[in-house]
């Protein structure tokens, strides 16, 4: 009996004589075969446990390393996908396609309906000249715009390592796309109204459409002030014709007719 047991027992519960007699009597020992069997079982179980312990010990570090590796790979993949042109070219391409769809689509409808000048003009040529001008000045201006767009979205020096730069690039690019898309939608809406049964379109609407078209392609030969006043716009067109810039003049004439369907061209256009 241990010390706790002695302290815990008082009076009749504890009898040293009985305890001594019992201890003298109870001398049996565990058979060695039983010992061997139990210890063998324990050793076998400990082997499994050791393996499990090893696995449990390495499980968390391995899981952490795997998570870290996957995150790193994902980040690198993201950087790799954002670095090349996709940031640049989709913006400019989308913008260009928007301009083309806005300006070029409604043109044939107006070509057959408005004026003799328009009838005499070559519609496909006009369309092409509006969307893809062969004029080196216009083309240069367009390229410059694209370059400026690209440079604002992408730093060719290589300072694009951080995700913040990429986020800014994406934001700038998306803003440009949204602006262009918004302007194009306004122009399309105006042109739809024009196409509908409202021949007496007001001049305010025409001016708005003109300004919308001006926003779409600011590198046109006529200035914003000229586009705001039909007479000045008309004068600009006639000046282009006098200068021999017929493709630009035809393109401007198409746009002019779209914006000002009620304008009396013969009054100040002596060539007609």
């Amino acid at each position, binding site marked *: 009996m*241990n010390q706790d047991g002695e302290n815990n027992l008082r009076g009749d*519960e504890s009898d040293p*004589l*009985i305890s001594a007699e019992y201890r003298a009597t109870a001398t*049996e020992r565990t058979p060695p075969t039983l010992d061997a069997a*139990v*210890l063998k079982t324990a050793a076998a179980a*400990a082997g499994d446990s*050791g393996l499990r312990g090893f696995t449990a010990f390495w499980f968390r570090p391995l899981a952490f390393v795997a998570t870290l590796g996957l995150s790193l790979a994902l980040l690198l993949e993201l950087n790799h996908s954002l670095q090349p042109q996709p940031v640049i070219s989709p913006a400019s391409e989308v913008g260009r396609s928007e301009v083309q769809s806005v300006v070029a689509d409604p043109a044939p409808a107006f070509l057959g309906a408005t004026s003799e000048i328009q009838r005499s003009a070559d519609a496909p040529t006009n369309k092409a000249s509006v969307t893809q001008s062969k004029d080196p000045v216009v083309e240069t201006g367009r390229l410059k715009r694209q370059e400026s767009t690209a440079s604002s979205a992408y730093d060719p020096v290589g300072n694009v390592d951080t995700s913040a730069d990429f986020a800014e690039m994406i934001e700038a690019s998306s803003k440009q796309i949204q602006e262009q898309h918004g302007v194009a939608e306004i122009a399309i809406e105006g042109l739809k109204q024009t196409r509908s049964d409202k021949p007496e379109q007001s001049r305010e609407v025409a001016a708005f459409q003109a300004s919308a078209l001006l926003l779409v392609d600011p590198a046109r030969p006529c200035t914003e002030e000229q586009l705001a006043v039909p007479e000045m716009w008309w004068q600009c067109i006639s000046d282009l014709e006098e200068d021999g810039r017929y493709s630009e003049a035809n393109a401007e004439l198409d746009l002019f007719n779209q914006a000002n369907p009620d304008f009396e061209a013969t009054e100040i256009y002596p060539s007609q």
Partner: protein
Amino acid sequence: MLRYKDGDVAAFETLYRRHNDSLYRYLLRCCLDRDSAEDVFQEVWGKIIKSRGNYRRTAKFTTFLYRVAHNCFIDHIRRNKRHLGKTDADPDLFANPADGTELAAEKGLVRDRLEIALTTLPDEQRDVFLLHEEAGLTLDNIALVTGVNRETAKSRLRYAMKKLKAALTEPAHSAETQS
């Protein structure tokens, strides 16, 4: 046990060597049958080994060990129903093969009386007595192992001691009682 939980087999062996004999004697006197005692003994240690993963140090290991042993013994009784013939237990059951003939004869009288008295004790009293003598448990721990309150354990131990004392000091009266 915590070291064995971490895979230290040597720690388990130390633990086993500390408790194996007393546990064996406890089960031998509870079961009153050597084969059954060995079966239950193996079952107890098997459960201890299996439960090492969930082992928490909430009490002394001895208390934990004997609680398992007590439950295994109860299960053994329920399974085999062999405990009914306890009064027919062979006194030589507890003989130590290492003892010589003369020494065995000298020990025999006292041992026989004590062993017979032990076998005649009610299961609960014998259980409490053995937990007290073999495991060295306190009344609180005995109560915890047997699933009774402290006063009940104390009462059982008192009765057990009283009967054993009477058997040793008054063998004739004990023999009459037994018959």
